[in-house]
């Protein structure tokens, strides 16, 4: 199964600023996803990162707030824009081919907005 390097692992940011989170996969993968996990909650899918085209966003998430890039089959970024305290969460990327090992997760980014 794929191994994912995600960074930064944590950050404390001022409201109104933006943070870009990176995920690097050690092999080419078909699918990459970005999730948010708010305190005490389960994982909520933000979007599917599509290689070479615009991401597919879930209901309640928009490109202006969460722009995503995926320039190739091993790398993706998620930007959290114009942050507010409500954006304080763990952000996780996930990748895989949907095969027997499911999807692997990155180590997560714990974001605190003050």
């Amino acid at each position, binding site marked *: 199964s794929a191994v994912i390097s995600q960074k930064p692992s944590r950050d404390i940011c001022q409201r109104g600023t933006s943070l870009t989170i990176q995920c690097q996969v050690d092999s080419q993968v078909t699918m990459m996803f970005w999730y948010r996990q708010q305190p005490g909650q389960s*994982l909520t899918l933000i979007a599917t990162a599509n290689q070479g085209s615009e991401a597919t966003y879930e209901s309640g998430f928009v490109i202006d707030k969460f722009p995503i890039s995926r320039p190739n089959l091993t790398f993706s970024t998620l930007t959290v824009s114009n942050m507010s305290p409500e954006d304080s969460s763990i952000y996780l990327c996930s990748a895989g081919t949907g095969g027997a090992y499911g*999807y692997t997760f990155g180590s997560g980014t714990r974001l605190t907005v003050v």
Partner: protein
Amino acid sequence: EDKVVQSPLSLVVHEGDTVTLNCSYEVTNFRSLLWYKQEKKAPTFLFMLTSSGIEKKSGRLSSILDKKELFSILNITATQTGDSAIYLCAVFAGGSNYKLTFGKGTLLTVNP
């Protein structure tokens, strides 16, 4: 809309106990069910189940799927404090753009 429901939401046991975690689902065009363990930030993959009645086993953990009744269970025998974690159930449905739908998770606490 696809739905995954886990129970209980939290559970406290003593070391050595056996626990059973439940996951029921309602999805269109079911393909597979996955179990993950989340200790800090990153969920780690445990099992993927696609066929009814076939038990997947890894050490003290085992899981089985019932596609007729639309549920799965995750069993942990002889629990250890290191089993304390959130256990997440997710379902992969065909035609869903390959995305997973997660349940809310079960927070398991194993006390010494």
